């Protein structure tokens, strides 16, 4: 498979070069070039809580694309599909930490959890105030009674944005942490994959799937989930996914759900908008109103074909924070979409 890189050894750094030159929102960290730090309208870290995350690269625009006002203060960029090391995350914490404290967001994947928590321990040893916040939402990874064993999926973007907006508004560390946990408990995600992405490391497809089958519940690195279903009108697939999501975490009739329809990298806007339209209908059939959608390819795995649907049942304050303005290279403006049929 043809890929447009210079050299596997420099591909991540070459990408970050391009990113920081293009985006005045960000700069490279002073402590390490693998750290992307907010540059425009920086916070006073002694006054406002700072937020950061470390993650493997290969999933852009997440997470470096969300560094900026109203979302993240820094992103620590690991190698392709590999969590950054604990010492690198520690440097990331040092870049942004102040007296107000820092929340280290951790998408629940084993390397990210071990290295993120180890970095937190080392930061505390140096006297910094840091809280690690584990994020998980993929219902295919574990049943509801073992929610905490789930892996991080695109629904984690609700936490990024809502905590980012609240931190900007001056919420203190403990209250932000509780808010993040509350958003996490209200969020569920399910993915459907149609075709594999090509690993930039091996040049090989990351999984295989017959032409007439769709894989339900695949993780962002191609991890197994619920199994295969046959292709057909996407309406049927979305109905099935919404049914499983609402079975997992019910929303009362008359309630509302904020929605993320995330493309995996190889799925068109045409398809994603169709999925969104069917999501609105499927939710309406359950007497749930779809609001404030985020639609596009934000958590990608190279050119993997497929999408995920994330549902989040917000209270009024959470919804306001979700729709609050932000200024980052890649986070879209979220509109309430109040024309949605109830």
């Amino acid at each position, binding site marked *: 498979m043809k890929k447009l890189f210079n050299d596997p050894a420099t591909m991540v750094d070459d990408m970050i070069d391009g990113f920081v030159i293009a985006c005045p929102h960000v700069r490279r960290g002073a402590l390490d070039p693998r750290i992307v730090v907010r540059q425009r309208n920086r916070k006073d870290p002694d006054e406002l809580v700072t937020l950061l995350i470390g993650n493997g690269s290969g999933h852009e625009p997440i997470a470096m694309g969300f560094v900026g006002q109203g979302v993240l203060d820094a992103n620590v960029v690991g*190698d392709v599909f*590999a969590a950054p*090391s*604990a*010492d*690198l995350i*520690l440097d990331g914490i040092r870049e942004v930490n102040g007296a107000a404290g820092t929340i280290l967001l951790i998408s629940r994947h*084993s*390397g990210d959890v*071990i*290295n993120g*928590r*180890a970095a937190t*321990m*080392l930061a505390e040893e140096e006297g910094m105030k840091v809280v690690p916040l584990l994020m998980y939402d993929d219902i295919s990874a574990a049943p509801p009674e073992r929610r905490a064993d789930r892996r991080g999926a695109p629904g984690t973007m609700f936490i990024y944005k809502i905590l980012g907006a609240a931190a900007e508004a001056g919420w203190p560390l403990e209250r932000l942490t509780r808010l993040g946990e509350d958003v996490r408990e209200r969020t569920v995600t399910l993915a459907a994959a149609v075709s594999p992405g090509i690993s930039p490391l091996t040049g090989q497809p990351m999984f295989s799937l017959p032409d007439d089958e769709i894989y339900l519940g695949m993780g962002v690195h191609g991890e197994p989930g619920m199994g295969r279903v046959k292709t057909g009108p996407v309406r049927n697939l979305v109905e099935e996914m919404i049914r499983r999501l609402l079975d997992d975490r019910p929303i009362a009739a008359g309630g509302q759900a904020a929605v993320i329809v995330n493309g995996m990298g190889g799925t068109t806007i045409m398809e994603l908008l169709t999925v969104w339209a069917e999501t609105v209908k499927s939710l309406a059939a359950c007497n749930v109103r779809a609001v404030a959608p985020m639609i596009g390819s934000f958590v990608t795995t190279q050119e993997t074909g497929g999408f995920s649907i994330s549902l989040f049942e917000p209270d009024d304050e959470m919804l306001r924070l979700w729709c609050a303005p932000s200024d980052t290279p890649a986070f879209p403006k979220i509109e309430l979409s109040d024309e949605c049929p109830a």
Partner: protein
Amino acid sequence: MQELNALDAAVGDGDHGSTLVRGLARAATAADGKRAKAFMRASGGASGTLFGLVLHEIERHLDDGDDLAKGLERACARICDLGEVRPGDKSLVDALAPAAGALADGKSFAEAVSAAEAGRDETRDMRAKCGRAQHVEGGGVGHLDPGAVSLVLILGTLARESVS
């Protein structure tokens, strides 16, 4: 290095020796106070982090004179917490915990190394409850845990260097 790789090949993916050597080589050329962190960066992965926490305490002991018994206890507790592992699970903890315990009881460093060696040898008959070895047929019974072996090498080297 090859011996550790061979031990790891029996119960895991066969790169434990290479991973450690890569990390240690980088640590050897790092600045004072940054050696354990250079190790973490260069060796990568979960084992890089967990061994890095042990080296971090050894570095604090050598550079700043921090109490080694307390340091190894802290590293052991952190590794158990992060790796979700306990003594008896067939891991480096089976060598580290006895060594930390011996030092905490006021025993000499040589005695602590002996305790680590005894713990290492006990891993041969253990069935793995953590890491890749738990998925290997038989849970790795009959093989020493490579992490326990390399931990003893690290402590043994420290003992020799401290005496000389």
